[in-house]
């Protein structure tokens, strides 16, 4: 997790938020339970969609986030990764 930039971490966190671009972000209670497969699927779809529309967005942080998510092995590793990411939003 430490080799992931904060920008890429924010990209992952946004999949768990009520409103991803809010200035006062809150974790969505149902999204909180998202599995790794779901987040990865959503992230891959987003990268694909953004490539499709040929926008000028730098997709590297998105790809970096997907790469790290893929590397996580097993449910426990994923859960501990997500818990650490979301904890500062919950307290």
């Amino acid at each position, binding site marked *: 997790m*430490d080799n992931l930039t*904060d*920008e890429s*971490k*924010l990209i992952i*966190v*946004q999949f768990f938020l009520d409103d*991803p*671009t*809010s*200035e006062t*972000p809150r974790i969505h209670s149902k999204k909180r339970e998202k599995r790794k497969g779901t987040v990865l699927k*959503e992230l891959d779809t*987003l990268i694909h*969609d*953004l490539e*499709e*529309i*040929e*926008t*000028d*967005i*730098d997709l590297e942080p998105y790809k970096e986030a997907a790469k790290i998510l893929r590397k996580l092995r097993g449910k426990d590793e994923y859960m501990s990764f997500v818990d650490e990411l979301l*904890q*500062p*939003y919950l*307290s």
Partner: protein
Amino acid sequence: MLEKSFVQEKKTPKPSLSEVIKKKDYKGLSEHLEEGIKDYLDSDTFQNYLDFVSKFHKYSQKNVRLILAQKPTARYVAEFQSWKKLERHVRKGSKAIYVYAPYFKDKVDKEGNKVTDENGEIVKETRYFLTPVFDVSQTEGKEIPKPVYNLSEDMNDSKKFTQTYKALVELSPVPVSIQPITNEANGYYDPAKKEIVVRQGLGEIMTLKVLLHELTHATLHTDSQAFFGDPTYRRQEFEAESVAYIVSNHLGLDTSDYSFGYLSSWTDQGNKLEELTTSLETITTQAKGLIERADQLLNRVYTLDAPKNKFEERLARARGQELPEPRTPSKEYEVADPKVHRPTKTL
């Protein structure tokens, strides 16, 4: 003879906003926004800002200015996935607009240990990153929902005016009355008596506008000691008028009689540019609060009055959506009917 050679000092041209954003130069962007505040001394730029906030009041002044600096015609922005959920798609080749989004993390020391405060709580830190959004004009698809009310279309219906007036009175932190006023003022907020008085017989639209103006004074300038003509008084008037403009515009009232000429002499009046940034934040926050609370009240009362659409109800049930309980009128609307002169077509 020695030829004197001059090396002309080359000035590096200032990078454009899109270059600064592309480079993710956060320091440069901050400077850009700081300098950009002077553009708001132009009343058209300022009015465009107010128009944006009246339609879309989710962000702070900093993000609103950032959005408008990238796309002055922007009106509603959302990230790619939200447009998709609204069954609208972003057009190919669209240039993203960037907003600041906060990222919270636990603070760590040089050794990588989490930093705690005196109570043993982990200290959090916030970093801001630019995150892409798109304006509604860059998308196409299903029509976006409109508010259930639009006063300009319905001002001939006295019921609409009464409902709106009562909703605004509910939002007021002090009692409101409509009375004859002996001087030339259309209304006032009295900090000593903690009350708002609106001149009787102003007509419906003007009554609402004056009430919105005084409501802002009653909320923001509660114990104001400012006297007519001093810089504080002028700044407070400017803030109240700006909020009244945003909320009036949001409610669909005619706003063509508002003007912000005062801005052109902002610095001559003894105000600093930083104070304009503060005022923008004050105006944006106050307007956002008023709009959100007014929307809640008005949506409730208008939906209550609106005939139920049985087809939509059935469709929602078929989709497994939960339907809200039937609403009943609350005590909130037990405010005396305002005394205004009708009809007032000349307004």
